[in-house]
């Protein structure tokens, strides 16, 4: 089922189960109104986020990708978010090369208690993506090329 033309853009979120997913729940329980574009994929930890997931999302037509986990030091698995930070920093460098605007990608830390902050993060990022507008789509062959290149890069 497609995004509602003109109303929404395609934004994918990868959230860790312990902090940010809880933060998003807290925002919901607090009835903090947010734009509806974002679709959340729940993972145990941002340490599980393979940069490939992000790239695949973009290649398949995502207009924005948001990754959010526990604050540094608060990781439920002690170090998962540090691994995530390192990998995502590398990814940010590569996005440009792959022809993806780096501004379309953002990662941040939101704890389970920070409902208000989560609302802010979602609102700001969604606004940013709407400013950038829809991403240019990739031809399937280009996509394959990029992904294989990516695999070797990481």
């Amino acid at each position, binding site marked *: *089922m497609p*995004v*509602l033309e003109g*109303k*929404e853009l*395609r934004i*994918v979120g990868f959230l860790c*189960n*312990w*902090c940010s*997913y*809880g933060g*998003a*729940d807290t*925002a*919901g*329980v607090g*009835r*903090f*109104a*947010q*734009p*509806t574009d974002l*679709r*959340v*994929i*729940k*993972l*145990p*930890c941002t*340490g*599980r*986020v*393979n940069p*490939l*997931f992000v790239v*695949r*999302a973009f290649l*398949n*037509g*995502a207009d924005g990708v948001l990754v959010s986990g*526990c604050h540094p*030091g*608060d*990781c*439920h*698995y*002690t*170090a*998962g978010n540090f*691994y995530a930070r390192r*990998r995502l920093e590398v990814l940010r460098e590569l996005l440009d090369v792959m022809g993806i605007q780096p501004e379309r990608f953002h990662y941040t830390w939101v*704890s*389970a*208690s*920070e409902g208000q902050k989560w*609302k802010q993060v979602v609102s700001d990022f969604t606004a940013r993506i709407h400013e950038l507008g829809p991403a240019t*789509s990739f031809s399937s062959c280009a996509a394959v090329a990029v992904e294989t290149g990516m695999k070797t890069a990481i």
Partner: protein
Amino acid sequence: MNIGVFVCHCGSNIAGTVDTEKVAEAARSFPDVAFATDTMYACSEPGQAGIIDAIKDYGLDGIVVASCTPRMHEATFRKTLERAGLNKYLFEMANIREHVSWIGKDKELNTNKAAELVQMAVAKLRNNTELHAGEFEINKRVMVIGGGVAGIQAALDCADGGLQVILVERESTIGGKMAKLDKTFPTVDCSSCILGPRMVDVAQHPNITLYAMSEVESVNGFVGNFDVSIRKKATYVDWEACTGCGQCMEKCPSKKAEDRFNEGVGTTTAINIPFPQAIPKKAVINANACIMLSKGKCGACAKLCPTQAIRFEQQDEIVQEQVGAIIAATGYDLFDHTLYGEYGGGRYPDVITSIQYERLLSASGPTGGHIKRPSDGREPKNIVFIQCVGSRDPSVNRPYCSGFCCMYTAKQAILTKDHIPDSQSHVFYMDIRSPGKLYDEFTRRAMEEYGARYIRGRVSTIQPRDGYYVVKGADTIMGSQVEVKADLVVLAVGAEASKGAGALAEKLRISYDGYGFFMEGHPKLKPVETNTAGVYLAGSCQGPKDIPASVAQGSAAASKVQALFSKDKLASDPQVSSVAIQRCVGCAKCESTCPFGAIEMTEFRGMPKASVVETVCQGCGVCAVTCPQGAIQLQHFTDNQILAEVNALCPY
């Protein structure tokens, strides 16, 4: 696969802003979906029955429920599947309440989003496989961190239930804040008379090992098998030998040491036993104040100690303990009133905190229970109490109500009248918050029987004027300024998270809120659990609480531990990593990245291979991203499963 989809109305919580029928209809067009319907309350008895029937009637072998957050009801529905004879991991949830219906009003957008989340769940479910939990042994010992009234209650309940308890206390004695109180509201019974016996029970209980002057250094492992290292801070006294006779205190020449137990009201000796009922009743040397330790000469205590217990050379010591569960009961600290420059910022000797006043009231306190002004030892006649100092004050980032100040202030006003019959108390308050059994009656007594004058308004400033203090406040009900002459001003300082709470939370891997209070598992339904299995909360470390509430939570946490330990083995979570041996090239990258050391390198037909120790793996999935071959995968969160979700959302 035959997938059944159930879209929950949650009354009007979801159906109010999501067209659940439409979502169900959309779901029918998704691959492998054999059955889809909306339902009033999926979690209710009939709701679950409906799911079970559908599984039977339509031969479903996978279920998606679109309702609230999985953090709420995933466990519920997994049980439902098991009751229907399905493996509980053939289940996915779409969160269309917290993430959809509660955060947006546009029904069209919400409905569309809900349908997409269902589609995503279906896509993942199609890649799910049956998983089966293993079992592992648990260590039925429990560690309680913090020896205040909540920790004492938890420790005693666990110990009485036959569990081995490790009680870790930062100070040299247990008792916490309650041990410093003179009387307790609303009964005005003596604090040490009711707490004292419980403290003695702790000391004498065969099942309790007490580490005083100790702090948790690090925590490793997981529910059922935690490895804790505890730092026993140097006391410079051999506690095996020390009998607590107290002769050392009488002879110690250094008498200007900070008196922590008496909250800095007066000073004490460098070698010190905080108070007569201390548990353990052992001497501790304050290294900064000790002449021997700072200047290398003196040793008076060592000379006269009847049991030669003094050890100037003593060092901190690290001890290891294994436990299966942990109860955090680290309590709270009091707001630092020096942030209020308008109240003197600590420059006025006779402007003191409420807990300092408790020490003045206490018969075992520095003044032997006689209320004396710190400045000149005079007995005050006019005492002003100022409430909400560091509570309900956004300008110092303390917008919350500390809950118990109204009550202890009323108590202190009553005790003041008892101590000094010809005294007059004034209480500046914003609102009197006294919900609780016999609480409001108590505050009324302070006014009606003890003549405390309550003034509804905040105090703007306190100014000293020859020998007394002018308290400038407002009476908002009368609609005017009021100035009260005071001999003594008592600030009802609010509660805040105890120092080091954040650091401990990080060691325990639990979350804490913006103020540093630990986060409970669920604000309503999991008041003493945390999101980390095997770690529980008791008392004010979770948020300001009075004594009855702290005790109740101590018992609640204890009973949670008892329930956990009622089984001899725990089911291990099968959502752990596993290695596809034929794809593994034995590069050992995963071994080096695993935060838990859950991966061992083994040999298989002479080739090095990684293998996962399932009971140690916590399921973070860091290894899965590290593996260049994609050989190691996290069960239930495999690359394929996650990419299926991505592709469902981004189909081009």
